[in-house]
């Protein structure tokens, strides 16, 4: 077999494995999420199908495959079918670039599907493409609520993408590379990035919640206002594909946060003293970190109510974006003028920013939640002359 063919086949195999892994995780995420939400609401959650409800995902899969696949008369047939495929395709593609271990550690192969120098940029670009799935899905449904939901979520995702991208700039300036390997390698030498970019991390975390359309930012699916948003006219497997895309995006966001801010596939170095080489084991550390963030996503969903749409937009534009800019400026200024100062000072500054945000959280609240009491003379009378 020629060399290029072998590489191609192995890459394909890895891609299939990643897709299978992601979809299995998605399936069990739905179960775990429902169980955890149930327990947090003092009920057992789904426990009927199989032992402890473990076969529930299989039942759900069978159901969504065999359900009637409706297409609305007014729908643009091609785009209507294409939209969920775009959404899930982009979501799955984005994950492949994330390294899960050191080079050659997975049976002599590299534990990633593709390796780009533009790692994080490519990933952000791919996840942004997912907006097309949502927007086109809403538009092609040929119905009112989906288009409202689709427009809303595109506006939301585009707005928060700014905050998301900008909150990473500081990190990229410190590390000096956009490749995930470079970033993980840098963190192995200097300690996890969260120590130096806590403000950036907080902003990135908030933006990821908005990007993946999770509570408290799950506006696209606000039942009370727009039925199910862009999903309204979708049924059966197409609907399931959109759900998959949402969960896969969540997994990707968790993986990105672990990779960028928590040392990626590398475990804590001090454990090496106990078991030599444990921090270099592939997969395990990344999975543990992803699991932690996924739990955070569920936990927040169980706790926080949804924001109003105008609050969401103001929150993004008036708080997240300026703060991300400020974080970028701060890091840039520090790097330009630090002379021989250590990076820890930047960490302290960043932490001070987070603390200031915590302390001032009531004050900044007026930025997005204006009290709506009008002064007496200000009332507009209907039909006035």
């Amino acid at each position, binding site marked *: 077999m020629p060399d290029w063919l072998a590489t191609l086949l192995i890459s394909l195999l890895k891609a299939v494995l990643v897709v299978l892994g992601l979809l299995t995780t998605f399936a069990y995420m739905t179960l775990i999420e429902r169980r955890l939400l149930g327990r947090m609401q003092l*009920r*057992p959650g789904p426990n009927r199908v199989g032992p402890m409800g473990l076969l529930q995902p299989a039942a759900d899969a069978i159901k969504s495959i065999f359900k009637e696949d409706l297409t609305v008369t007014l729908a643009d047939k091609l785009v209507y079918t294409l939209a969920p495929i775009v959404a899930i395709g982009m979501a799955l593609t984005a994950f492949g670039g994330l390294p899960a271990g050191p080079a050659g550690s997975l049976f002599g192969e590299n534990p990633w599907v593709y390796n780009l120098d533009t790692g994080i940029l490519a990933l952000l670009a791919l996840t942004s493409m997912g907006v097309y799935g949502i927007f086109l899905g809403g538009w092609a449904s040929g119905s009112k609520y989906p288009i409202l939901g689709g427009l809303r979520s595109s506006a939301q995702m585009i707005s928060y993408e700014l905050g998301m991208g900008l909150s990473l700039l500081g990190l990229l300036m410190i590390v000096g590379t956009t490749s995930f390997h470079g970033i993980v390698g840098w963190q192995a030498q200097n300690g996890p990035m969260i120590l130096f970019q806590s403000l950036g991390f907080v902003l990135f975390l908030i933006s990821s919640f908005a990007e993946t359309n999770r509570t408290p930012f799950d506006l696209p699916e606000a039942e009370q206002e727009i039925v199910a948003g862009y999903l309204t006219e979708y049924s059966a497997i197409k609907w399931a594909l959109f759900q998959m895309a949402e969960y896969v995006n969540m997994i990707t966001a968790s993986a990105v946060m672990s990779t960028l801010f928590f040392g990626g596939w590398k475990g804590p170095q001090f454990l090496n003293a106990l078991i030599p080489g444990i921090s270099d084991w592939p997969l395990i550390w990344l999975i543990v970190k992803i699991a932690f963030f996924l739990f955070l996503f569920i*936990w927040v969903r169980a706790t*926080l109510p949804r924001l109003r749409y105008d609050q969401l937009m103001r929150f993004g534009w008036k708080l997240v974006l300026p703060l991300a800019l400020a974080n970028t400026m701060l890091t840039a200024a520090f790097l330009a003028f630090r002379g021989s100062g250590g990076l820890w000072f930047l960490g302290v500054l960043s932490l001070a920013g987070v603390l200031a945000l915590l302390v001032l959280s*009531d004050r900044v609240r007026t930025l997005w939640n204006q009290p709506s009491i009008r002064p007496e003379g200000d009332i507009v009378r209907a039909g006035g002359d």
Partner: protein
Amino acid sequence: MGVLEIAKGMGVTLGKLFQKPVTVSYPEQRATLQPRFRGRHILTRHPGTNLEKCIGCSLCAAACPAYAIYVEAAENDPAAPVSPGERYAKVYEINMLRCIFCGMCEEACPTGAVVLGNEFEMADYRSRDFVYAKEDMLVGVTGSIPQRREATRLGKPVRLGFQLDGGQPRAELEGVKYP
């Protein structure tokens, strides 16, 4: 501080994660109902004479907002009366698919014959099986039509999926005992 409130809320949900669920696994465990719960109707009898209380006056049918009740009265045979009055209900049917369990029939009844009990497990496959006749509702009959059918099939006594808080049905349900 606004963020602290969020943190407090997160703490509450995390704490609940380790608490025992308050719901019961219903078909295996029995649900606990309050005695005032309004479920399937029961036609009661006079305790001493064992005669049916219903005198076939159709007031319940007139009061029913869902037109769920059908009564056909007949003259009592003085030698072997069914009810203490002049007439009794020859046919007494309630369509449980129409019934909204409002309890108006119970309020309208001059003799306290029709009383809403606590049974609620009436799900079935065919519409005609939701029309409950007198034999299905007279006091002493335990379980709904599908429950009794199931019990006959298995040769076991009817198992109700609920228990009453306090154990006793309310006083209007004269002679009713729930296992």
